[in-house]
């Protein structure tokens, strides 16, 4: 079974603090993703990575950065947390390799349990 873990289930930070959210997957997946989930908006992609040290912006990258130094670990960084970044953050991974078109089931995304971040 694929296991995706996230460093914290709940996190409370103050405005202006630097925040690190860590995600680790144990299935040697190529792709990793960071989403935020807000009521009525579904899952919105912040950043994704298709290989070590490679990253691509998603739909809402502003205010966030990411780091992928090792294949199994993908970190989301809030350089200076703001109240509008209060949200549920979900990490996911998938097997699909770079350049593949994803016509089979290998691009199923496996999600971590989520981190509920509150910025005061």
């Amino acid at each position: 079974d694929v296991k995706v873990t996230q460093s914290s289930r709940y996190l409370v930070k103050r405005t202006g603090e630097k925040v690190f959210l860590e995600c680790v997957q144990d299935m040697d997946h190529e792709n990793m993703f960071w989403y935020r989930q807000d009521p009525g908006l579904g899952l919105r992609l912040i950043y994704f990575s298709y290989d070590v040290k490679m990253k691509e912006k998603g739909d809402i990258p502003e205010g966030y950065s990411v780091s992928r130094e090792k294949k199994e670990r993908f970190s989301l960084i809030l350089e200076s947390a703001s109240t509008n970044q209060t949200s549920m953050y979900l990490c996911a991974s998938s097997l699909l390799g770079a350049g593949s078109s994803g016509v089979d089931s290998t691009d199923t995304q496996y999600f971590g349990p989520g981190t509920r971040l509150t910025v005061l």
Partner: protein
Amino acid sequence: GQQVMQIPQYQHVQEGEDFTTYCNSSTTLSNIQWYKQRPGGHPVFLIQLVKSGEVKKQKRLTFQFGEAKKNSSLHITATQTTDVGTYFCAGQMTTDSWGKLQFGAGTQVVVTP
């Protein structure tokens, strides 16, 4: 703006009734996936549809992919309390090659016993 639209946003169902949730994309999809998120949980993969007009069944759940590969539906028959949760569709655009998915906003399902 959101490229994958999902309706309805909320669905209140009496136990034993049927319902359908719909997913529409503004662009052609290479495939579509459905996920279920239980209250307090994380999204879990249910199924993937790839072919135009494809229909797949999982017990009481029937998934359909439109002929034009721009819409999909999930039909649940004889709803049970275990069906409670939010159902998301997620489409992979034909222009994306990194396994990136566009998620709909989800249909939150509440079942009344």
